[in-house]
């Protein structure tokens, strides 16, 4: 009892002292709240992705919509359904709409298609976040993978794993998605730097698969027949790389030909590593990217004039391999 009385007296004294010192606790409001409420009131965010049927776009849509809606921001989705034309139509429609969104989140197809509408939307005052696939135009935020960095990282791994000094042939095959897409363009930049410095590594095939796993499969089958001593196949996106992995397995070379890829990091990433289809998987964790986007949006909404804002939020990479495998590295789509 005495201790309790002492304690209460102490805390009372403390609060008086603290109050006297001017640091408000119980009676002070959270000063961020009013301006936050003002910033998000009646605001709308538009999501314009390449399609709505892949693991990245599905998790992005899920998390972004869930979180933003909870914060009081309205969201709407425009499905380009694998057609850059359609995406341009959606963006152009926003340009002339009376109720255009305040922030747009755009995943581009390639560097040029949406560049013009994006530029004009920026000039008209719309704040924009480019997500994972940028156009040649800068926008307020870029949230996504650092493709040049991924290219460098993967190239270095390939050098290490395939070098003739380690008894390997030095031959690698690259399977791109859309050659003109930013992920291909920038990854190749990063890879080229490394390969130029390491002439012992020979890129025997560097074709585009148009994001199609069956095309990737055909390409890989051909390459494996042409180069039976191939060291590794790197697919620049896991969506089409699954075809290459199957081709390797079909040729009975699983484990002998290395299978590398990158992607969103959904459950199938961990599954494919554990089953041996993929040897090394660089995940940029699209679930985390979605949260980053929410942060970017919230930040932009609270910025009056964002015309000078140029922020890049590169996604940290997680290398998933048999050695490092941990179920927590992969997210599940519900």
């Amino acid at each position, binding site marked *: 009892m005495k201790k309790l009385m002492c304690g209460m007296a102490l805390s009372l004294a403390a609060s008086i002292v603290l109050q006297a010192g001017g640091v408000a606790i119980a009676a002070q409001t959270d000063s961020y709240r009013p301006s936050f409420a003002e910033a998000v009131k009646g605001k709308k965010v538009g999501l314009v992705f390449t399609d709505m049927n892949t693991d990245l776009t599905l998790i992005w849509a899920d998390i972004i919509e869930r979180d933003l809606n909870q914060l009081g921001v309205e969201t709407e989705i425009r*499905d380009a359904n694998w057609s850059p034309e359609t995406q341009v139509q959606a963006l152009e429609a926003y340009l*002339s*709409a009376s109720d255009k969104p305040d922030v747009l989140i755009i995943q581009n*197809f390639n560097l*040029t*298609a949406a560049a013009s509408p994006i530029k004009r939307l920026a000039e008209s005052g719309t704040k924009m976040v480019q997500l994972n696939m940028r156009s040649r135009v800068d926008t307020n935020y870029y949230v996504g993978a650092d493709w040049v960095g991924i290219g460098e990282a993967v190239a270095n791994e390939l050098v290490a794993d395939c070098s003739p000094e380690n008894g390997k042939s030095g031959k690698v095959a690259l399977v791109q998605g859309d050659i003109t897409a930013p992920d291909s363009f920038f990854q190749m930049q990063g890879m080229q730097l490394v390969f130029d410095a390491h002439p012992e590594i020979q890129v025997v095939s560097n074709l*585009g698969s148009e994001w199609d796993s069956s095309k990737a499969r055909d390409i890989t089958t051909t390459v494996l027949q042409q180069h039976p001593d191939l060291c590794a196949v790197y697919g620049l996106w896991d969506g089409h790389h699954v075809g290459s992995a199957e081709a390797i397995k079909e040729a009975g070379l699983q484990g002998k030909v290395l299978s590398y890829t990158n992607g969103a990091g959904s459950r199938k990433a961990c599954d494919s590593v554990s089953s041996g289809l993929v040897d090394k998987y660089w995940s940029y964790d699209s679930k985390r990217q979605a949260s980053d986007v929410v942060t970017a949006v919230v930040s932009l909404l609270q910025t009056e004039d964002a015309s000078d804002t140029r922020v890049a939020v590169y996604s940290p990479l997680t290398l998933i391999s048999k050695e490092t495998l941990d179920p927590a590295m992969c997210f599940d789509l519900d």
Partner: protein
Amino acid sequence: MSETAYQPFKRITRSVPKQVIGEALNKPWADSLIPFTVTVITIAIFASLLEGYLSTVNLGSLAHQFSETAIVVLAMGLVVMVGGIDLSVGSIFALANFVALYLIIALEVPVGGAVVLTVLMGAGLGAVNGLLCGILRMRAFIVTLVTMIIFRGIVSLLLLKFGSELALGAEDTPLWSFLGYGSVLGLPTNTIIFLFLAVGGHVLLTRTRLGAHIIAVGGSRLAARRAGIPAGRIAMGVYVLSGALCALAAVLYASRIGSVSYTTGKHLEILVLTAVILGGVSLGGGRGSIARMVMGALVVMVITNGMVRLGIRGGVTEMATGAILLFAILFDVKWLKHKDKLLNSTFVCPVKLTMPPLPDLTDKNSPYAVNDRLRDVEVIGLDQVDGPEDVILDRAGNLYTGVRQGEILRFLAPDYTRREVFARPGGRPLGLAFDRDDNLITCVAGMGLYGVRPDGEIFKLTDQSRRTWWRLRDDSRILMADDLDIAPDGRIFFSEATVRYALSDWIVDGLEAAGNGKLLCYDPATQKTTTVLQGLLFANGVCLSHDGHSILVVESWGSCVQRHWINGPKKGTTEPFIANLPGFADNINRASDGTYWIAIAGIRSPLWDLTMKSPGFRTRMIKRIPRDEWIFPNLNAGFIAKVDETGQILDVLWDRFATHHPSVTSMREHRGYLYIGGLANNRIGRIKLPAADPTWMGQDSYWGTRPAEASEA
């Protein structure tokens, strides 16, 4: 005054409003009605769902985004109309897009040069298709399928080698950004170019010979070939044009989007084919128009764009496009199949006609009492003539008649056993008359008013009259010139039996009873054709009265004859000559004693009169039962009547047992004989008229006797 009397204004005002619908549906632009309605409905739906859809800003934006696709629609549409298909449009588009960007970005060719080179390349690619499909006559589907894959493969190869180089896009030069983002007269540049091409295409198809040839080749390549049209070269030309148009569209696309990607032009051929089919351009070829293609394109683009903007998932848009395509095809197939039936049933617009009481032919005391006076006719040209509708004799006594084969035959005097083809005007020669200079003037159904000189040379007098301004259907072409006569001053009065029906279905005019016939006048001095009378119920026989002051004109379905004054105090007025005949009269000609002969081709029946009283009955009949089973005016049994100047019947001649002349359409008196013709007969008849003047003949009656010929006879 019964309704059969000449009351043109009343007849016209009663019939024309109903006819408008049928005539509207028969117009070439009627085929566009359905696509037009669909377009309007589609735009209305999306305008209501999307705010600000119809604002200038939005419409301008839509036009900007779709003009390139619309140009490709024109390309595909033209190829489909010529009877082919071009599945490679998407690949040509992609290749041209790449080449244009490569020229401008990598090779730094000036914009103008790049455009020209790219379009030429497109034309060259189209020429490959054209050579294989047009000249070598290979199957377009499989050939363009293969070229599609080949061109697409070339694009992939080029992308592989040069794609990264072009990935960052082009520098903005003034001309380049003008093409992509400039505007002319408030419309985006690519839209202006599209409109220019669309109008040009329309003019090409509808007003030029080449366009008619394109449609002909598409409609029936074989028939076009036989008509002398170089089908292979025409088809080749269209494919080349298609390639060039796709390339042009691609250049505009490049200036707007500026990206090279494997997705460029993908599925463009399906999208464009859907638009073309929606617009009612038939896949067999030969049917369609630029306007309809554009409407189809509009519908497809509005729907796909609208669905994107409504936030609808891609899967739904695809399903909707597929469903719309299926409905469009279904409708097109059904429309083609039933169109003629529908048009026929709406074109005919029966009108009520109250006939005067039918004279009783069984009454022995009736002036029309049946006899058998034509039993003993002499037969001329048995089985050598097919349908001698009108007969006439020249000063030398040779017998002329027009037959079904489009010829005017001549039987030589005096025995009429020798037969020769005097002239071959074509069409269906009907009424005949000699003018002052002994030229044989004839009304040729299907062609107009023609003349034949004594040496057999054919010349055209007229085939057009002034278009009736209040008729929707263009009736300036004379489709059914029937009979004629010539006034002393040389003016030719001739009848246009009906303006709404032609040689193949003139008898349906009887069911309409709408007063579609006209009396026309051709003046050789001014070469002008004027309309003298309108609203006639099948204007048939024409005869100048003996005093030359009036024209008698027969109204077949009216069972009456009108007199129109051309001279004298009553000039310009019309009064009934014979108000009530027992049947449908055909030709009327002068007799030797100041009276007239009139041929009655068929008899009215009480059933017919009843049918005329009920237009509703006739409408239902036309719509519900096949044409073979309709009630038609009877033209199977008739007679010849002699009438005097007051219109009173003096004499009748029947072929009671239908041995030689059951149905008579004309008779001509010449030197004491009466020569008889029939529209469906296989002979000409000649009967002696004991009481007639044996020296009288038509030419003398009209133009005076000639001393020289008079002595020959």
